[in-house]
Every structure is written in C-alpha cells, then in structure tokens.
C-alpha cells in the first residue's frame, strides 16, 4: 500500500538526500525527483477528487499522541499548484545554474524546500507545522543567498532572522494552546476551542501570537520590509519559488488557523485588522512596483500587493453565512492564490531570462527585448495580465467574486481598493511592456532557449487560460472536501 499523502513529502526528501550524497548527478537525480514528486501530487489530487478529504494518522497511534496528515480540497489545490510550479522551476533550473558549486547547492536545498512546502500544506498538527515552517525558512534563506553577492546575503540573512522570530512567536502560541487544551492535533483542537468559550482570552492570545508570527512570514504590510530585497536579489528560479510558493505557504497557514481553529472566536473586528493591512499592502505594493527601477524588484513588490488581496477575504468570509455565497468566496480566494502562484513564477522565470540575456534587469533599458526574446516577452505579458486580473485569467474571476462579496456584505470600500490596485497593476505591467517593445535600433537576433522559455511560458499560460477558462474543477475539489467532512457524499 502506498499513500500519495506520504509520497508527496517522502519523495522530495529522498531526492534531496540522493542529490546531496551524489553531487555529480545532481541535475539528473534532481529532475527525476521533481517529476516523481509532481506525479505524487497529481496522484494525491486524483485521490482527493475521488474520495474526498484524506486523513492519515502516522504511526498507528491514538490521534492525540501521533501526528496526522490530511488533504482537503484547499490543501490539495495548493499542493497541486505548488508541485506544478515546482516542476516548472526545476526544468528552468537545469539550464540556469552553470557554476558547479551553485548547481550542487541548489538541488538539495530546493528539494528540501519542496518537501517542506508539501509537508506544510498537508500537516494536521501544530508542532509539526512549526518544524515545517523552520525547514521552509532555513531552506528558503539559504537558497536566496545562493548568488553569494553582498546584497543577496544581507537580504536573506535578514529574511532568516525575521522568519525565526516569526516561528518563535508561532511556537509560543502553540505552547499556550497545548497548556490550555492538551493536544496539538488540529482537528481535536478545533473541537476543544469551540467547546471552551470561557477560554477566550487564552485562545485569542494564542491566535494573536501565531497569526502575527505568520504575518511576518507572509509579508503582510507593514511586516513586508524584508521581502523586496530578498526576492529581488535571489537567483531567478529561487525568486519564483519564494514569491509564488513560500510566502503563500505562510498565508495558507493563517487561513487554515483562521477558518479551522479559531473560527469560533474570530469576529468582524479581528478580521478587519488584517484586511485593512492587506488593503494598504495592495495600494503600497502596487505603487512601489510602479516606481521600481528593476524588473525583479517590481515583481517582488507586486507580490506584497498580491498577498494583500488575499487578506481582504477574511472580513468577507466572516460576514457571509455558510452557504453557496461563502463557498464562492473561498473558491475565489483559492483561485486568486493559485493564479498568483503560476503567474508570479512565470513572471520571475521570464525576468530571469531577460536578466541573463541583457546582463541587467533595469526596466528603462529593456528596449528591444521583445525583438530579441519574443517568447519571454510574451510570457511576461501573459503573467502580467494575470497579475492585473484581465479577463480570461483566474484572478479576474477571483477579483470579480471578491467585489461581489464586498458589495453583498455591505463592505463596498474594498471595491475601491481592488479597482485601484488593478489600475496600478496595469500601469506597472504596461510600463514594462512598453519599454520592452520600444522601437530602438536593435540587432535582430532571436534567442531561443527552450529549457528556460517553455516553463516560463507554460506557467504564464496556465495562470491566464487554464485557470480562467476551466476553473470549475476547483469548485468541485472544494465542494468535495466539504461533502467529505459534512454529508459524506461522493461526486
């Protein structure tokens, strides 16, 4: 018997070990591990699709004593996104790194990061989540510093320290919850929190500590200060992983805690604070992206803004009673997170290509890029339109439902934030494109590098076309998870 739930974590882990032990074959072993891991993620998705939420208690002990893994629709959708993006990044990385030291350092750390991501999405235990957060943070900081230049090392050292602070804060929250409720299992804890309204102060304090620590890792304004330099200075495939996946993992955990664990104690006031910060993040991040001088810095600030959108959903989810309207909101949230994952990864990979070919990524000097790198420019345009939220993209539907929910719950002011953010986003994307299409005298020389261009283009295409035109399955995946835990119905 093999369980895709376990394989999603164990395969990249074994891959990381083999790559570490046999550095000479790191690229070949690395790409095999990437394929195997992505395969496990697809198998997991298929299993959740057919059977609903999967739940596994490791070690065969009582649920309290052991660690549980679980995959519901939300987790599975994110695992699938992370693993497809991960596969794209892996293919891209085979051609990106040339220095032997970099190649040998990248693959094991990247596979460890991947294992941590899958582990985090699938974990059902608060302390196990802490370990995953630490693995994620350490591997991410090490990868970000891989270029070895001063700015990258400084930025990622700061990222590491900030991340550690965040996880310590999270751990204190876990300690408080264990003190009061005597369990670390997410499911059991949810029941006990719901059953003990008299412990409101304890639960609220634990929640504040955990959410604050995670908001630091998710770069919620004003705790985003570490993100732009860390993401802009990392090697392109690493930037893609950090911006598209790692930050999202921290947000996912906030959402998980908010919806599953602390639902009974979160009122409108509690949801308003992160949403207000998210709104500022949307405006501030988009504005800074517009003003950025470098392409990768622009993408990093755009991540700050895009994470902000996700926090806007919290008060809407709080105000909407359970039912189809709330399901739509949840699906929209997921759609925006997943779309951003694909789009930002595609954007960063394309930006990396521009950088390696031009020797720089200064936006004002991008003239002629469209002529030299047509496919890459197309990838930037596609992912850019997904970042804006133009029609066929997944984020168009997401934003649409977000605004619909805002109006339905009488919180019309978020509509202004979303519209302004989208306008700013179109401004920064078009700024890049207008420079890239600039009609400067350029030597007409096509550069094609399939290994690098195909992943960038594919990820960008998924964000625009696949997720927008065929977003139905996402609803089914989420619906299935609801049916699995509630009425127990099938397809």
């Amino acid at each position: 018997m093999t369980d895709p739930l376990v394989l999603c974590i164990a395969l990249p882990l074994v891959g990381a070990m083999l790559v570490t032990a046999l550095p000479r074959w790191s690229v070949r072993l690395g790409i095999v591990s990437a394929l195997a891991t992505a395969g496990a993620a697809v198998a997991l998705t298929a299993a959740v699709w057919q059977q609903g939420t999967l739940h596994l208690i490791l070690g065969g002990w009582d649920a309290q004593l052991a660690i549980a893994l679980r995959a519901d629709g939300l987790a599975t959708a994110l695992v699938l996104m992370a693993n497809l993006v991960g596969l794209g990044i892996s293919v891209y990385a085979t051609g990106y790194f040339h220095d032997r030291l970099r190649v040998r350092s990248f693959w094991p750390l990247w596979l460890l990061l991947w294992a941590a991501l899958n582990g985090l999405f699938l974990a059902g235990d608060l302390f196990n989540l802490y370990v995953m957060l630490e693995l994620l943070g350490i591997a991410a900081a090490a990868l970000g510093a891989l270029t070895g230049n001063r700015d990258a090392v400084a930025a990622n050292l700061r990222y590491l320290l900030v991340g550690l602070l965040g996880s310590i804060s999270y751990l204190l929250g876990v300690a408080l919850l264990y003190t009061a409720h005597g369990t670390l299992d997410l499911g059991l804890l949810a029941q006990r929190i719901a059953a003990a309204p008299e412990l409101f102060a304890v639960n609220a304090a634990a929640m504040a500590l955990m959410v604050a620590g995670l908001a630091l890792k998710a770069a919620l304004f004003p705790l985003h200060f570490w993100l732009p330099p860390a993401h802009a200075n990392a090697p392109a495939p690493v930037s893609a992983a950090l911006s598209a996946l790692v930050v999202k993992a921290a947000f996912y955990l906030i959402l998980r805690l908010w919806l599953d664990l602390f639902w009974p104690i979160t009122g409108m006031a509690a949801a308003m604070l992160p949403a207000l910060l998210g709104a500022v993040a949307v405006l501030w991040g988009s504005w800074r992206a517009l003003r950025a001088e470098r392409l990768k810095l622009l993408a990093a600030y755009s991540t700050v803004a895009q994470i902000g959108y996700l926090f806007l959903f919290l008060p809407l989810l709080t105000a909407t009673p359970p039912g189809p309207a709330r399901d739509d909101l949840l699906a929209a949230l997921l759609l925006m997170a997943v779309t951003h994952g694909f789009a930002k990864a595609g954007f960063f990979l394309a930006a990396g290509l521009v950088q390696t070919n031009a020797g720089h990524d200064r936006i004002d000097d991008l003239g002629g890029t469209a002529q030299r790198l047509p496919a890459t420019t197309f990838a930037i345009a596609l992912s850019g339109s997904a970042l804006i939220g133009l029609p066929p993209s997944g984020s168009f539907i997401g934003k649409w439902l977000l605004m619909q929910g805002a109006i339905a719950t009488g919180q019309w002011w978020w509509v202004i934030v979303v519209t302004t953010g989208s306008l700013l986003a179109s401004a920064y994307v078009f700024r890049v494109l207008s420079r890239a299409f600039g009609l400067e005298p350029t030597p007409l020389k096509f550069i094609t590098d399939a290994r690098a261009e195909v992943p960038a283009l594919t990820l960008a295409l998924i964000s625009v076309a696949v997720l927008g035109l065929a977003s139905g399955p996402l609803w089914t995946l989420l619906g299935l998870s609801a049916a699995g835990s509630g009425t127990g119905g099938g397809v």
Partner: protein
Amino acid sequence: MLTAQFLYGGAGLVLFALGLWSFLVHEPLLRKIIALNITGAGVFHVLIAIAYRGDVAPPDPVPHALVLTGIVVAVSATALALMLGARLQDAEEEDRRR
C-alpha cells in the same frame, strides 16, 4: 495547577519578552542571534514548566520531545545565520578594500 509550573513558566515568558526586546533594539548580528536564542529558550522553558507535574507524578514527555526538537532547530538556524553573517562581513571588507 502547581505553583512551580506558574513560576517557571512565568520566567520563560520574561525571557521571551527580554529576548524580543533585545532583538528589536540591538543592531549587531551576534546580539540579535543571542536575543533570538533567549527568546526561543523562553518558549522552551514554558513547555518544560507545563510538562512538570510535581514530585510524584512523572513529567509529560511530549513537551520534552518538542523542546529537544526545538533545540536542534535553533542551533541549526544559529549556525546558518552566523555563517551568512561571516560571509557578509567578508564581502563588506572586500568592498572597503576596493
């Protein structure tokens, strides 16, 4: 509840706040790292305190195991942060010499 649990756990919370303060106000990397380690030690101390169940009952082994895990994680992070700091220092010296 035991008085010892409250006293020792309270000391852990003091250490948490102390480390947090030092992390926020002190600039040098080594001081920040010491601060983080003390913050972490504070949280570990809370866990060890709640595991203690008096002289008769044996202590709860689960928090003990969590703290053991946490100690190894903390030392790993410390090692990486220190080496990144050393690398940064080298790079800065190189820049200055140029």
